[in-house]
């Protein structure tokens, strides 16, 4: 077997295709453009989160605070903009949310890099801190009257056409953000020294320092960058929902982490790819958004999601275990 056929990306891809085939055979509407667009739409914010999780996990850390950072950034940015009676370009809103996210991410990074604290603990702590601070001191009331330019931006579609039944099928503009971020993360990981340093750090932190990588810099970069991405993702959520809700997004971290782990990003660090993470995420998003199409009653939906996660990950894990157990033959 060739190397890629042993990879987890391959198996997750296969399982995804299998799932598509099954759902599609139960309900042809699955393969409609409207549905595929909707799947993509559902993955816009989780897609960015998946990039956050991927990068951090590859570096050998973990971050459970990105939803809290996203919510903090979007809500406080919205509040600020409203206080300023802002009506300028949306770019400012994204930059502001991103900057707030970057600062919060750097707090994680500094604590992890300089105090050498376990990432899980730090981010659990800061996640609780960030959202506690936000809801206590910034506000806890949903903001529905966004600055006009943000509201307008939320309605922009990148493609739009009339589907059957007079339904407008479209993809919001924000999908481009996600696409750009995915490409950027993939590029960083593959073609920059920082990216390779992230892999090296995840593979063996001691060796990484010995060949001259600065673990402190890399960790600050990773957590800061993740904060930046999370801030942008938060603002995307706000424009897409056309309201800013300070308890939105919280609690999605474990599912996102599970999705990227499913896509072959190894929780112990050093292994994984952007493609795999996206496939894993797509698998979860598809499962979550197809149960009505398949006609599963709502009482059974959770049970089915749980079972599908177990079966999906089971098949992938079993195949990988089997293929990696096969060694190159020594016998001539």
């Amino acid at each position, binding site marked *: 077997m060739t*190397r890629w056929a042993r990879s987890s990306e391959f198996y997750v891809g296969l399982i995804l295709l299998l799932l598509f085939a099954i759902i599609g055979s139960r309900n042809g509407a699955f393969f409609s453009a409207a549905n595929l667009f909707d799947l993509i739409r559902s993955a816009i914010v989780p897609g960015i989160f998946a990039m956050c999780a991927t990068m951090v996990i590859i570096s050998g850390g973990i971050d459970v605070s990105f939803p809290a950072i996203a919510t903090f950034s979007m809500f406080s940015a919205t509040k600020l903009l409203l206080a300023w009676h802002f009506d300028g370009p949306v770019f400012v809103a994204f930059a502001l949310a991103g900057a707030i996210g970057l600062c919060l991410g750097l707090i994680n990074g500094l604590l992890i890099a300089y105090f050498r604290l376990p990432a899980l603990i730090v981010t659990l702590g800061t996640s609780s801190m960030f959202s506690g601070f936000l809801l206590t001191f910034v506000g806890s009331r949903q903001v529905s009257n966004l600055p006009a330019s943000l509201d307008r931006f939320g309605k922009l579609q990148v493609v739009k056409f009339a589907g059957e039944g007079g339904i407008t099928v479209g993809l919001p503009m924000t999908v481009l953000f996600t696409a750009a971020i995915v490409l950027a993360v993939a590029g960083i990981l*593959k*073609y*920059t*020294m*920082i*990216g*390779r*340093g992230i*892999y*090296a750090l*995840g*593979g*063996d932190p*001691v*060796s*990484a*320092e*010995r*060949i*001259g*990588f*600065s673990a402190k810099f890399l960790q600050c970069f990773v957590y800061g960058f993740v904060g930046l991405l999370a801030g942008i993702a938060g603002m995307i959520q706000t424009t897409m929902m056309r309201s800013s809700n300070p308890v939105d997004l919280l609690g999605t971290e474990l599912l996102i982490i599970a999705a990227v782990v499913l896509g072959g990003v190894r929780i112990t*660090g*050093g*292994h994984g790819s952007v493609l795999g993470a996206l496939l894993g995420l797509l698998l979860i998003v598809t499962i979550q958004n197809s149960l009505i199409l398949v006609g599963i009653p709502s009482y059974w939906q959770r049970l089915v999601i749980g079972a599908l996660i177990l079966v999906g990950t089971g098949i992938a894990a079993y195949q990988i275990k089997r293929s990696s157990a*096969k*060694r*190159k*033959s*020594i*016998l*001539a």
Partner: protein
Amino acid sequence: MPNALIELKGIAKSFAGVHALKDVSLRIDQGEIHCLAGENGCGKSTLIKVMSGVHAPDHGEIYLEGQLRTQLNPFEAIQAGIQVIYQDFSVFPNLSVAENIALSGELARRRKWIDWRRMRRTAKEALAKVGIELDLDAKVEELSVADKQLIAISRALMQRAKLIVMDEPTTALTQKEVRALFDVIEGLKRDGISILFVSHKLEEVFALSERITVMRNGRRVVTEEARNLNREMLVYHMTGRQIEETHYEAANKTGKPLLRTDRLGLAGCFEEISLELYPGEIVGLTGLLGSGRTELAESLFGLLPATAGRIEIGGESVRIRSVRDAVRHRIAYVPEDRLTEGLFLQQSIERNLIVSVVDRQKGRLGMVDRRTLKATVRSWIEKLGIKAPSPLAPVKTLSGGNQQRVVLARWLAANPKLLILNGPSVGVDIGSKEDIHQAIRQLAAQGIGVLMISDDLPELRQNCNRVLVMKRGRLIGEVEGQTFTPELWAQMHEENAGSETEGKRGDSA
């Protein structure tokens, strides 16, 4: 006097109270091959890490080409031309061969972007220099220990280095690869590059070095021109005692064989292995890299259950499907890769020692009886002379040789009938090695059968009654231990190069 490339003055370093280095001074000149020798835990690796900026010394000064460096970090050290091949290789298991070799060079040149084609080219050249061929895209975690070591070597050789430090670079290498490495080192010397070489294999030390520094207990004992030293003097400096080369007197084969395999096979790894091992025997097992001897050992220990043939223990046919089975038949296995397979690095020495016998420490209510447990631990620490601040210290704080003794003690505590040792003295100093050999011989004398896998010919010669040779998954011969010379070994391989089928059954049955 030639220019000093690096000079260390009065270096001291301690870890949480353990004085690893005390007032060590060392000078390495341009273009010289300098050897660092000493027992396990005497501070060689620590000294190297100070040189390469990994550890900051508590006291002392470091001069690079005459310049005082106060805060040396790894990146600066690399910039200054110091390349280190670490004892634990420091390779990245998750990255490809090409990247492992080429990445550090790119980093040292402060490149921000990765050019994959250039990296592959660099890696290819580096491998060619050492004279090996590897799949550039293979992940390093899939490779054998030896390949990892070769990668670490290739990586260091690719840099524009002024000093290459090699901390026991030959532990996992076969004779042939060692010779290739020595050729490379000679070449480097001709280019004016200095080498600091650490090895416990005295033949290597004498074969290579111009000057030798001996350390003991964290202090420098002596620095001397190699030609002014001989083996006995060196050993004396290292250990403070005299050690003679002794041979194990084989017990007579009596009674039933302890272990007998009949045409044992494991798909893809080895086949048609028939061998016998009698109580009190020490049988060597050697072969080229990838000959399947590790797999054979792991089969006997139930890690890779055999797919063909039969195993008999004490005359009775048994099935070994799991480690539990093996342990039940009182088989013990000291694995090849101490760090990943042998040790629980963060856990205490105590726990590392008793992990395999913890079930036997049950007292009342099935609870572990701490009193006997501690007594057991204490006795093994004393018997094997494990040098440790406290049995409760994490085992990762021990030096390589002491770590190996912990693994050995663990299995000796299990009171085995058959002891399989895979590289029992890899990275172990001459004094400790002697101790370990003594321990093994005493065990054999008590009626335990020992199967010893090793590349170290003197070790095999001194300890083994018989030596079995494997190649490509088959036994190709058996030799009396004392007559096993390098020449014979090389000859056996060449004989079998063309006519594999002939040697299939070996002479072992």
